[in-house]
């Protein structure tokens, strides 16, 4: 019994030292491999695009990807809680369009408030359908996604709403101390997401419910409220991101956010959060976001066919999950 069972005084089938070392190596690879991938991609980026690391470029990349990142924070919570949210793109569009529509006739502030409030309502609808009526989250949000999209297209007559007033564009286009406001907001949302997941009772319960719903229920956890809460948060953040994006682009339209669901899921998955739930982290999602954003920037600077970007993104998503599965198998033998 040299080191094997470090955790117990009662040695029940000790793990031999060599095995332990191998497991440690796998664990390190699983935990930090994603950072290595980020470093490699950044190096590639600086080689193919000399301006990549310039402060202006970095700021630009971050602010362009802020809406995606904010959506991904909500998606991380949903996925850790054992769910799935395909409706974030539609909610994103609902909020941006509503904000822009209202801003053209009334004040921009009212527009943002209504947009975000609508996101809350959409999230609540998802939560009720999934936890009350027990509809599979995949199906529920696929359905609600087309429901939300259809409604906003009807209301907006499928028109884009251009808003040039500064009261509308400040949210996406002002700078604070030289940094774009969306980037700062992204930072704040990530920080809050991290706090919720790692430092709050609620976050702990999201992890528990995602990891073993029956055990959590038997322990007296209100699993429906916990899981439902993740959809509400996700809806809220998607709507917030939609408002920021509309303000950045000075336009709100029902077709916005078409790829938001898949991209945000890609960000979460590349970071290594398991689609099975119960496991994952905000920092990983942040790294996933940086990887996708860097890739995006590389292809943008190369000015090649954007289809290549799709292809490489696909490969990275599948590769990340396959690697993660491999490590998992190695850990459990």
């Amino acid at each position, binding site marked *: *019994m*040299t*080191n*094997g069972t*470090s*955790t*117990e*005084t*009662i*040695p*029940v*089938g*000790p*793990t*031999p*030292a*060599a*095995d332990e070392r191998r497991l440690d190596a796998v664990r390190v690879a699983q935990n930090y491999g994603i950072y290595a991938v980020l470093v490699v991609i950044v190096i590639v980026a600086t080689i193919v695009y000399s301006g990549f690391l310039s402060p202006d470029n970095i700021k630009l990349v971050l602010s362009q990807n802020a809406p995606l990142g904010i959506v991904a924070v909500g998606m991380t919570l949903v996925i850790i809680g054992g769910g799935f949210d395909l409706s974030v793109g539609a909610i994103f569009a609902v909020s941006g369009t509503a904000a822009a529509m209202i801003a053209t006739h009334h004040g921009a502030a009212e527009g943002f408030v209504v947009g975000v409030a609508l996101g809350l309502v959409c999230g609540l609808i998802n939560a009720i359908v999934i936890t009350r009526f027990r509809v599979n989250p995949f199906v529920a949000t696929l359905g609600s996604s087309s429901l939300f999209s259809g409604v906003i297209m009807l209301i907006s007559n499928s028109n884009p709403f251009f808003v040039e007033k500064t009261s509308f564009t400040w949210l996406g286009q002002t700078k604070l101390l030289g940094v774009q406001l969306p980037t700062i907001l992204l930072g704040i949302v990530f920080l809050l997401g991290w706090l919720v997941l790692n*430092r*709050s*009772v*609620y*976050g*702990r*319960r999201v*992890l*528990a419910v995602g*990891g*073993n719903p*029956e*055990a*959590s*229920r*038997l*322990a*007296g*956890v*209100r699993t429906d409220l916990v899981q439902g809460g993740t959809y509400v948060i996700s809806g809220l953040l998607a709507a917030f991101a939609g408002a920021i994006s509309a303000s950045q682009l000075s336009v709100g339209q029902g077709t916005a956010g078409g790829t938001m669901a898949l991209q945000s899921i890609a960000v979460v998955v590349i970071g290594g959060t398991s689609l099975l739930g*119960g*496991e994952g982290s905000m920092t990983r999602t942040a790294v996933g976001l940086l990887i996708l954003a860097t890739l995006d920037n590389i292809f943008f600077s190369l000015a090649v066919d954007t289809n290549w970007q799709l292809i490489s993104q696909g490969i990275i998503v599948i590769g990340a999950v396959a690697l993660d599965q491999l490590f998992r198998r190695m850990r459990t*033998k």
Partner: protein
Amino acid sequence: MVPEATVADRETAVRCTAVSRSFGHTKAVVDVDLSVRRGEIHALVGANGAGKSTLLGMLSGRIAPSDGDLQIFGRKLQGGRPRESRAASIAIVYQELTIVPLLSAAANVFLGEELGHGGAIEERRMQRRFAELCREFEVEIDGTTVAGELTVATQQLLEIMRAVQRQTKLLLLDEPTASLSHRERDFLLGLMRRLRDDGVTIIFVSHNLDEVIAVSDTVTVMRNARKIETAPVGRWTKSDLVEAMTGEAPARVSRERRAPRGEVVLEASDVSLPGALVDISLDVRAGEVLGLAGLVGSGRTSLLRSLAGLEPASSGTLKIRGKDRPWPRSPRQALRKLDIALLPEDRKGQGLVLGMSVPDNVTMTDLGTVSRGGLVNDRAQLAKARALMEPFRLNRKVDRYPVSELSGGGQQKVVLAKYLNQNPSVMLVDEPTRGIDVAAKVEVLNAVREFAQRGKAVILTSSEIEEVLDVSDRILVIVAGRVGGEFEMDSESPGVRDVLDLAFELDDPTAPVTSRSAEES
């Protein structure tokens, strides 16, 4: 044994009146009246499927009663809601583990009742409290370890900690000792007594009747979903209990043994595993059951796992029917190339597809024998499953219901039948009777012996030494990863004491018996 002070307290903690519960056509609990006094340890015993877990489940809110009335400390319990039972200060340790494998050990203990302040979790306070609990339990568990990486026994301790750390007035324990070692078991029994003396009422389910008699104040026997009798523990003997549980006199495995004459099927020498096993040599013959006895942690499980290819770090030399074969490096290799199968100690999840029916599970590995042209013949499959389950006295007729509907012990029986049906030439069996009632235990052990008599080699281990003595033709006592002694059951008749003496190295340590193969060659 029974403290007068607590018995004098006549207050009733639990009163069940005409409580029933059925699942479809299965009547799990019928018309049970039960009253449990405040501050007593009340044992609930009965054969597999008698309805014990269902009764506890109704008190814990996991299962709603179909009929009848539940009262806890004078207050009516609606039933079917875990939170309601929690609010009534009821805590339970379920028969199946309810661990969240990806959360830390400490987080599991405080699941649902996280220590926090204004919604923020107080991780340090939880770790401190967890460390206190560990000290109280006299174990050392790192609170930050992910629970899924701990042994089954440790996970079981976490569940017990979870139940105990809460302000609990009624504690329900469903076979809490099944996966614990002797030391942990003794600790738990001591803890139960201490809690009782502090006024906690405990209902305790166990198939270990010695334990039941040692710790409880009152025993209730259930059979076929009904309560048979409740009486103070002093009025029961072990064989009374068995008789009340099964309706028949207790059976035993015959200990008559002839020296096995078959060829040596498996011969392993110098088996080593860093940190667990040191140069163990052993052999088994066709038709022989080799028992491994030893304390928990002595390396019995590691030895079986090494032979089954589950310990890649293990080493040794292997001969199968006299021929040199490569040392197994993966379970696949062990099974396909060497025909060695292991029935592992932690069977839950590994052995069964819970949503699938009993026949589907039992015949999973040899569907070919019950199908024609790629189509499964339902009737042949069912007939085969019934034949295979026959020796195990399942309380329900084998049919196309999902395995999840069986009681804990019932599921174990299905796993056993499935593994025996795999029909390997070397069968390794770890803890075959965990969760199985006393009467069925005998049947299980007989089934293992019959399996060997078909010309198979069996290596079996159990933490219950009595059981190893009952079933084996030959016994190796494993002491700290080495062979500490050997008994030939056809010529010797050692008792539990003799085995324990060896296991604790109380015997003359200068003359360790090496393996028999060494003497023969």
